[in-house]
């Protein structure tokens, strides 16, 4: 539940002010807009990667703004996509001569607003492209991959796009690489309890004791299906069975791994689960590459976690390994 606020109507504004106050060494406020931009953005000759979405997912999205990562994040209200107007303003602030790549999770509201902004920017001669993250295998069947929503896979796609942009790749290339990262990324999650919106007292959904939800969203949506709770090693198998059944074809055996906590699942629990995930990955002949067990895309204080695999090749590995700095993720 959300306890720390003043007026819930000011939540987004206060959170942006607080974020910029804390991380002013990395970001500044986009003037007159609900968003933040990297202190060094825009950079001439370098594509600006613009991410964004509703609030309530920290570190997504503002936590990933900084050198080597996103040039800016557009920040909506809690679980509400930012408006096209705000996307437009943020884009104007960070558009460079090399163009702009929009990268965000595939949700109806985000698509509507980012698309409207993209049109408007293109009318003004800014070259804008879009790569939507569609990693959640639970949200649409195989063959309809582009209908899927984006959850924790955001992180890998942002990282790879940001690294390509920082390297100076042209817009076509940054777009291609982001799309490739997305095409090779799959996530699946389980939830044990819903989250509560600021100002409200009841969670968006509840999970009965001894049950869990499969195929969670990161907006307090209930899962696709309800199931019984089980020991960690069976949860690991459930996650991996689902992901491996959906593995992209011919993608090799090196996988970046993210075990992502949604908010109130304990880190220690996630490491216990990761033990079983790791064993299973090795059994399957997969090589986990620099795994991350952390909270990277949250859903307020939701209880649950998701597993993301990104099948790497050499060019994606290089980009994942590239240095970056941001409030939430620093690589060196």
């Amino acid at each position, binding site marked *: 539940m959300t306890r720390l606020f003043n007026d*819930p*109507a000011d939540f987004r504004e206060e959170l942006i002010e607080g974020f910029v106050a804390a991380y002013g060494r990395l970001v500044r406020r986009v003037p007159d807009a609900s968003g933040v931009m990297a202190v060094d953005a825009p950079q001439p000759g370098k594509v600006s990667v613009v991410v964004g979405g*509703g609030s309530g997912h920290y570190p997504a999205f503002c936590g990933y703004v900084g050198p080597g990562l996103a040039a800016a994040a557009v920040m*909506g*209200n*809690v*679980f*509400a*996509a*930012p*408006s*096209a*107007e*705000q996307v437009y303003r943020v884009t104007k602030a960070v558009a460079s001569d090399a163009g702009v790549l929009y990268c965000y999770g595939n*949700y*109806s*509201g985000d698509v*509507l*607003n980012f*698309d*409207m902004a993209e049109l408007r920017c293109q009318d003004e001669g800014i070259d804008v492209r879009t790569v939507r993250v569609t990693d*959640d295998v*639970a*949200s*649409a069947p195989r063959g309809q991959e582009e209908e899927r*929503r984006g959850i924790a896979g955001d992180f890998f796609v942002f990282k790879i796009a940001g690294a390509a942009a920082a390297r100076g790749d042209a817009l076509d290339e940054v777009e291609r690489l982001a799309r490739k990262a997305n095409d090779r990324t799959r996530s699946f999650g389980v939830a044990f309890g819903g989250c509560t*919106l600021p*100002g*409200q007292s009841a969670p*968006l*959904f509840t999970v009965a004791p001894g049950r869990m939800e499969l195929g969670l*969203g990161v*907006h*307090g*949506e*209930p899962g*696709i299906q309800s199931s019984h709770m089980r020991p960690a090693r069976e949860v690991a198998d459930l996650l991996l069975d689902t992901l491996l059944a959906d593995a992209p074809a011919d993608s090799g055996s090196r996988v970046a791994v993210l075990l992502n906590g949604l908010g109130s699942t304990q880190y220690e629990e996630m490491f216990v689960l990761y033990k079983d995930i790791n064993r299973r990955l090795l059994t399957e002949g997969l090589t986990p590459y620099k795994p991350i067990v952390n909270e990277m895309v949250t859903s307020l204080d939701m209880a649950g976690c998701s597993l993301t695999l990104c099948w790497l090749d050499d060019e994606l590995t290089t980009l994942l390994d590239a240095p970056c700095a941001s409030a939430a993720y620093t690589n060196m």
Partner: protein
Amino acid sequence: MSSPQIAGAVVRRWLALALETVAAHEEELGRLDAAAGDGDHGATMVRGLRAAVAAAEKVNGSDGQLLAAAGAAFADAAGGASGALVGALLTTTGRTLGDGPYDTPSVVKALQAGLTMVKRLGKAQPGDKTLIDALQPFVDALAAQPPDQPLAAAWRAALPAARQGAAATASMVAKRGRSAKLGERSLGHADPGAVSLALLLQAAEAVLPSATDR
């Protein structure tokens, strides 16, 4: 009951009443959205309407012009899917109405333009369990009224179609928007966007001039 002489007065009063009505249903809309979506629809609509009311205060102009300005403010403040779609509906309808007076046929035309825009942007069709399932039946019913019928009467006659359309979404499986991911799980609850759209239309009933503007 109204003073159509004052330009923009109808839209101003409608927005005020719409805000009041939707705010009274904020929690219910949130609950409906939580059933298969993310629970913010009530908050989003209230936020958008507050901004729309404030924007309309600041603009001098016709009802159409005010509606267009209110739509832009709504979209920006609300955000989300409903911000973009309801905002576009208001803006397109307002622009099509233009700066002159209006009657039943011109309002029908304007709403049809708004509906078309909503469909174009959101790519949803009737039956997909969205606000279109309240809007389309209403526009159709309004268009079916005799063209010389005063707007207020025509509007009143068309309202049940919006309400029924919204109610009927309870037995639909979502195909668009967040709740589409939940498939069968979205059954049994009305679509929040359809319900709030019906509330918006209902709020207009009380403020429309009982004789057309001209």
